[in-house]
């Protein structure tokens, strides 16, 4: 069964690269450009994993993460947080809120995809 990944980022060019990477590896990709949209897509599409940018307009990444973890039926969604801000406080905050991984930009495509596969339990 094809796994769905939600990409939540407001930078179009980053979305382009992420989209390509994920589709290449055989995942179904949905895109959200802000926090509200992200939550709506989660509700609608039930993705298995979400690549969540911290600096999202309308509702930032932390809020979305917190919301997901507070919602019982979304407990299974894996969350990878992305941010250009690499401070430790941000990282710990994210992980404390329930993210499964935290990756700083610019990232290595290999590392990112490896993390995605790991969290989704796929090898390859």
């Amino acid at each position: 069964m094809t796994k769905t990944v939600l990409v939540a980022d407001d930078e179009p060019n980053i979305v382009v690269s992420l989209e390509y990477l994920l589709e290449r590896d055989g995942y179904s990709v949905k895109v959200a450009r802000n926090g509200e949209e992200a939550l709506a897509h989660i509700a609608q599409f039930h993705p298995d994993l979400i690549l969540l940018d911290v600096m999202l307009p309308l509702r930032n990444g932390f809020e979305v993460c917190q919301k997901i973890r507070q919602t019982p039926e979304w407990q299974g969604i894996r969350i990878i947080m992305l941010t250009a801000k690499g401070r430790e406080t941000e990282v710990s905050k994210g992980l404390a809120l329930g993210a499964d991984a935290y990756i700083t930009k610019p990232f290595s495509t290999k590392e990112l995809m490896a993390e995605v596969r790991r969290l989704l339990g796929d090898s390859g």
Partner: protein
Amino acid sequence: MLHETAIIAVAFAYLGILFAIAYYADERADAGRSVIASPYIYSLSLAVYATAWTFYGSVGRAASDGVGFLPIYIGPTLMIALWWVVMRKILRISKQNRITSLADFIASRYGKSALLGGLVTVIAVIGILPYISLQLKAVSNSFTILVQYPAIVMPGNAATLLIRQDTALWVALILAAFTIVFGTRHLDAAEHHQGMVAAIAFESLVKLLAFLAVGVFVTFGIYDGFGDLFGRVAAAPKLRAMLAPLEGAAGGYANWAWLTILSMMAIMFLPRQFQVAVIENLDEKHLNKAIWLFPLYMLAINVFVLPIAFGGLLRFPDGSVDADTFVLTLPMAEKHELLALLVFIGGLSAATGMVIVETIALSTMVCNDLVMPVLLRIRRLRLNERRDLTGLLLGIRRGAIVLILLLGYLYFKLAGEAYALVSIGLISFAAVAQFAPAMFGGIFWKGGTRTGALCGLLAGFAVWLYTLLLPALARSGWLPIGIVDDGPFGIELLRPLQLFGLTGLDEISHAMIWSMIANVGAYVIASLSVSPGADEHRQASLFVDVFRHSGEARGARFWRGTASVPDLYNLLARFLGTAAADAAFGQYANAKGLKWPDGQLVADAELVHYVEVQLAGAIGASSARIMVAAVVKEEALTLDEVREILDEASQVVAYSHRLEQKSRELETTSAELRAANERLTELDRLKDDFISTVTHELRTPLTSIRALSEILHDDPELDRRQRVKFLGIIIKESERSTRLINQVLDLAKIESGNAEWHSSELDLRELIEEAAAAVGPVIAEHRIALALRLPDRVPAITADRDRLMQVMLNLLSNAVKFCDREAGRITIALTRQPDALRIDVVDNGPGIRREDQELIFQKFRQVGDTLTEKPHGTGLGLPISRQIVQHFGGRLWVESGSGSGATFSFTMPLGSRTTGSVISAGDMNAAGVAP
């Protein structure tokens, strides 16, 4: 009837009466209802001046010198006239300073000098010894004579008597016991001995009565009145000379004068006189009555002196009977036993009065001013640690009494036979007269100093010793008579009785002249040569100005130290007993409106002074000084320190003013510092924000660049369309990064003032046209209508052309970005103002909300439709433009209404000025990232 036993019995009975009176008076005094608080008692007590000398000796003197006995009584009468000034002052001073004795007075005046007090005591004791021995001689002689009634036999040489039969010794011992009982029953803080005063007032009455009785008897009993008596004297050729009082050599006048002066001194400075007149005085007002009552007494007791003398001379013409004894022998000769007994009692009364008061006064001096200061200084005894010293003090006094009386007896044995009574007495007078310069100087002359008093006393006393005591001892055989006759080592000029060749005076006058010259001379010269200490100054002022000062606190003005109330209390209790100490402290507390012993008293200078004064009443000023100093941690003040204290006081005031000023300044400075610190913290935070924002802004394009580059790298089989697309993005993002980096650096340079400005004259018209041309393609592409409204000519301005172009392009590109999508319209207007040129860039876009109008000038802040599109640009354009415009002294602002476009305007001043970069308030909030 006049058996030995009978006489002794009567004598003891009389002493018993005295004792009873004294006891009763003391009891009443303790109960607070004094019997002696009467000016009559006071005046009678003063009559202790009339001793056995008066009783017996004046008749003796009158018998040899006629009226020449009078000066001894004229003197006091004259002195009394001066008492109103002198005695009142002495009384006031003594009360205020709790003076306990003559030595205490002098010591206290000259800086509480223990040395001076000791010297005065020594002089007093040595000087009074002859006088005491005189009393002993009188009593023992009168007893001896009376015992041999009805025979009239003169007492033989007393030295041959056995000790057991030595009446004088018995008299001395009995009197010692009596005095001890009278005067040392307990210590009184004010040295009052009310019992003693009552007793001697009684004695003054008794001796007056006795003398009057004899006088009346002789004048009217034996003879027929004054007329008869004097008539007979005139008839006897040998005696006629007596009636001419001033007959004789010119020395007669001088002798009279000196004698008068001498007795004037005596009435003041005999220790017993000082005791009853000053120390025992209960009320200053008694003085008023005493001033005429005492002379009256003197008159009364002297009225019959001449008659008795003449009577005796007539009755015993052959000189076998000593004239000193006429008072007694005349009644005896006439077989009037009772009268004779009365006379004996009268004489006894006169003698005991003198001895008691004199020894009490002397023993007080010896205890307070001689022994105690020495003992207190012997650290080994650690007297200041002993709990109760009253026993010790009383013991010392009792010992002193016994010692003095024994010494008096000794003198009597050794030298008493050589002189008639009067001469012995006058020797004592001359001794105490040495106190006169120090005393009078002390109360009238502030310049009198301790050194002066010491030198004066020593000089005067030395002369006295040499001119009076030495001859007396020589005449009694204790020293070679050659010294008197030929002078020491045969130097005639230094003959004790004709010093430096002064002849024609009797011994006393001669001694007085030389001793006074030496005394006064040394006193004045030494006082003027040596400066006094701070203590002396204070005491001098206290004494001399006593009528000007009021209150006791002034003594405490200059004192420095620390004390504790319990220490002071214990000190007082040790010497006066707890009852007296409680009373004293209670009084002090009441005066302050506090309660004792509730412990609210402060151990300040005033309390210390008060305690010292109280203590001085018991043990004398100098001892009190020592004790207080031991209890209190005191710092001695020198005169300089006193001045310093005064200086300090005024300096402290000035200093505190300066301090206040400084602290105010400090406050303002610290406030300023706090504000500056706040600003710095703010700036620091902003810097952090700025950096993190820039970092974020740079990382974002980098992310795309890296990711896409990796994708391209990893997949060479990527289809061409994708590849082109990705490469395009890479290029764009690279450009974006570059732009960002450039702009950040630009802004940083401008803000920090490190930017390079190349100013030149330029024409704004030209610039605008050029800018318009530059954006031409974009304008055309978006089908925007661009309008230029430029005046024909504008003045040139001096500015950096490239920078201004940057501003124009920034505004134009914004206008392009935001103007209406369908029918975009941009207008550039150039207008001339009085001292500036103004450029407006107008677009017809959605406009900028009021709350965003300052926001857009902040770093990285962008507004736009946040719901749909992330705005292009870095968010640094406007901030940079503003910086540039401000650098040239202009302003950049926006006017916009929501939905009706925006107008960006900036001004460029004419006659251009450039200012340094200014961080405007709008840039302060460069936090956060574009939403």
